[in-house]
């Protein structure tokens, strides 16, 4: 055991307390400010009200932005699930020349700064595709999100495939199952939870993405982060944005809870 003096423990504890305060006080302020009656966030709050919650609830732009975020997120997740799983199988089950390059290719869209990905796709849409008469429009956003979400599914599925015992599939084949039956009844159930975890991560990543979206969203289309950003730039109704941000903070408990459940499920099986 690491023998720390009482003073050292106290110092460490203080650092942890400051770090946690640094993480949670700002989020708490957002939540509290969503109940402020004032137009602009300030401290201390003088009067409380639920007026901004009522306004947010009936706001048409917020609803439209949320719907766009969900559509783009689902589209990107579908792309990432298909492409990410295919690559994970290729890299885990086969050895071939250029394997490392394929791996790098999947990671690259997230390893490079978001602005590079955004500007590069924006450039292709506007200066290559548009002159030849192809307007990607709404799909431009989904394509962009799908591209950087592949790695989430890939990582999860690959990690699980590495732990699957190949002799179970061989047994299925020996017992007369067709490759499709083996996949459906033996292989897929074994990586299903990794598949779901990858999908959640991909959706969450897409839902939260701002920079790439700025450069690939068609004019006049807002996702929820774009709506928040535009609202922050026009601070005269700042309190409305606090309501949306509070809902996002509350919604963030869902993936944490699900991933905890999935992790616990995996532990119990082992």
């Amino acid at each position, binding site marked *: 055991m690491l023998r720390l003096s009482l003073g050292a423990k106290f110092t*460490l504890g203080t650092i942890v307390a400051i770090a946690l305060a640094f993480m*949670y006080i700002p*989020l708490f302020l957002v939540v509290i400010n969503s109940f402020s009656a004032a137009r602009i966030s300030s*401290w201390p709050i003088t009067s409380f009200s639920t007026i901004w919650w009522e306004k947010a609830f009936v706001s048409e732009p917020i609803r439209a932005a949320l719907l766009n975020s969900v559509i783009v997120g689902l589209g990107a997740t579908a792309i990432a699930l298909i492409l990410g799983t295919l690559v994970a199988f290729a890299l885990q089950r086969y050895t071939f020349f250029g394997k490392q390059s394929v791996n790098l290719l999947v990671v690259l869209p997230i390893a490079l700064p978001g*602005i590079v990905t955004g500007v590069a796709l924006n450039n292709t849409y506007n200066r290559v595709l548009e002159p030849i008469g192809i307007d990607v429009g709404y799909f431009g956003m989904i394509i962009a999100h799908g591209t950087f979400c592949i790695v989430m599914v890939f990582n999860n599925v690959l990690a699980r495939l590495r732990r699957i015992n190949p002799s179970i599939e061989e047994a299925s084949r020996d017992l007369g199952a067709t490759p499709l039956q083996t996949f459906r009844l033996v292989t897929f159930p074994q990586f299903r939870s990794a598949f779901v975890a990858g999908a959640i991560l991909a959706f969450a990543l897409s839902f939260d993405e701002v920079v790439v979206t700025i450069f690939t969203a068609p004019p006049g289309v807002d996702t929820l982060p774009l709506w928040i950003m535009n609202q922050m730039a026009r601070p005269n109704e700042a309190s409305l944005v606090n309501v949306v941000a509070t809902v996002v903070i509350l919604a963030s408990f869902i993936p*944490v809870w699900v991933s905890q459940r999935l992790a616990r499920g995996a532990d119990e099986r082992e």
Partner: protein
Amino acid sequence: MNRRAQLSALLALPMLWLIGIYIFSLIMLLVTAFWVTDPFTSKVKPGFTLRNFEQIIANPAYASTSLRTLGIALAVTVLSILISVPLGIFMAKVASPKLRAILAVAITLPLWAGYLVKILAMRITFTEEGFFNSMLGPLGISGPGFSLVTVVLTLTYLWLPYMAVPVYTAIRQLPPNLFDASSDLGAGAGFTIRTVVLPLIKPAIIAGSIFTFSLSLGDYIAAKFVGGSTQMIGSIIASNINLNPPIAAAFSLVPIAFVVIYLVVVQRTGALERM
């Protein structure tokens, strides 16, 4: 179906997507960096000129912004390490199992809270009439307001979990008898941390630093909302994308170069192979 055909079937679609869309776009971005903008119509025309690069090198604002962004990214990385190591040691070696489980959730939870939500949160905290000034004002302390300091704090807030989680995992995995051996040989806690813990968790720190560094380098939304007049590489790219796309394209090679140089330096230390 033989194995080669199976492999091709698996890879065809993903490769078509990643090379056909993504790599193609990166190459086109590089190509655009050599194109010309008509100064009167601001239409982009294919051509070949090094003028965009000359302009970037000649303009001192571009150079100082690049260096400032590099400095910010390094400061965020150092700050994240300085917070993550004590946090990891406390969680792994001091906290009770129950407190440890709570802290493990507590440090990952903000990762999900939303990028813009966190920037908004920092904006509310550090604004002139905000929480920080109002709480510490009576003590005569005035907050950093919207400035370079707040940009560094905000980016640290955003990317800290990418450092804290791998560092904590690495400290947890250290065999306890190493600590026993170190203390039996007479080393104090500080000495043990410096000579035993830090060298062993170096790969985790480096892995985390790739994220904190690269993500900070490309960011410009934090600078826009909590930075006051602070400009970053991303701010310049974003403001040029419609006015002068070739300049934006040429300048976006700067963060790519920084990331590549960083990866090469890190690889030299051998930490990537042990990740």
